């Protein structure tokens, strides 16, 4: 991989990602008043995360059945004990056992 090309690519792609993140935070200071917009922003994390999980989680390990078992383990455990690290470790272990 040519060093100059790689460096240019890394800087350009990281710059695009940063601009996307920084523009709203830099420009929007005032509190939104619209009840609809506030509700939308409240639901957004859950909607976007859910869309990121499904269906990608089923294909992420290369074994659909094992991934489904890992997903089920994560969902059940999150219901009773939603500790991020614990749920992640148990899901990985469940996939390993199922594979």
């Amino acid at each position, binding site marked *: 991989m040519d060093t100059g090309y790689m460096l240019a690519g890394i800087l350009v792609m990281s710059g695009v990602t940063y601009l996307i993140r920084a523009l709203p935070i830099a420009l929007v200071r005032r509190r939104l008043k619209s009840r609809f917009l506030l509700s939308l922003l409240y639901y957004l994390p859950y909607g976007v*995360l859910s869309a990121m999980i499904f269906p990608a989680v089923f294909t992420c390990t290369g074994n659909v059945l094992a991934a489904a078992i890992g997903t089920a383990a994560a969902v059940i455990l999150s219901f009773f004990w939603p500790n991020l690290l614990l749920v992640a470790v148990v899901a990985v272990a469940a996939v390993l056992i199922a594979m």
Partner: protein
Amino acid sequence: MPQQLTFNRGVRDGLPIGLGYLSVSIALGIMAAGKGMPLWGAALFAGISMTGTGDLVGINLLAIGGGLIEMICAIAVINARYMLMSLSLTQKLPEDMPMWKRLLIAFGNTDEVFAVASTQVRPLTFSYMMGLILLPVVGWTGGTVIGEAAGNLFTGTLIAAMNIAIYAMYIAIIIPAARKSMSVLLVVLTAAGLSCLLTYLPGKPIGDGWIIIIAGVTASALGALLFPRKEDA
């Protein structure tokens, strides 16, 4: 009574994210090494971009000699969701927070950092956000370095299984909220259904980056229309 949002509290909340990133970025580092990317390049990319799918696609584009315009477009589509997340985050930051603090927070606003930050009840502080961002940055960069340098220590099965760690963390964030609130559950199920539907459309006419935005925004808008939040809630 929720605890004060101090730097230490942020570090504690960021620890699981950092460890989750560590496991996923090892796989990324191994892939980067396989594509002929030097260790310093992969570490630099991970450390300054802080984006999982973005790095994955970026390294592949670099490996096949993709053009800069192609890179800009691909990353913009994949990461456009961060614009929504940052916009949402602005509502939780103090209005008088100085610009340099805002620009630093923006750097670390990843999916998981945003999810943890946005579920805090109290207004976010700068020191909490810096604490929250610290270990994810260390984990993401460190894992990439480990994968590049010592990838042969990991078996293929373990690497494959570790890919589920990030998704499991997303699940641990949305399930407690969906359990407490029917409207969040509706949003979660709608987004999942739409995302699956759009992904399996014949010929897959829509890219993954857009699918996440379309499914996430549509489901959230539906929630906002059917179950608007009360003032100050």
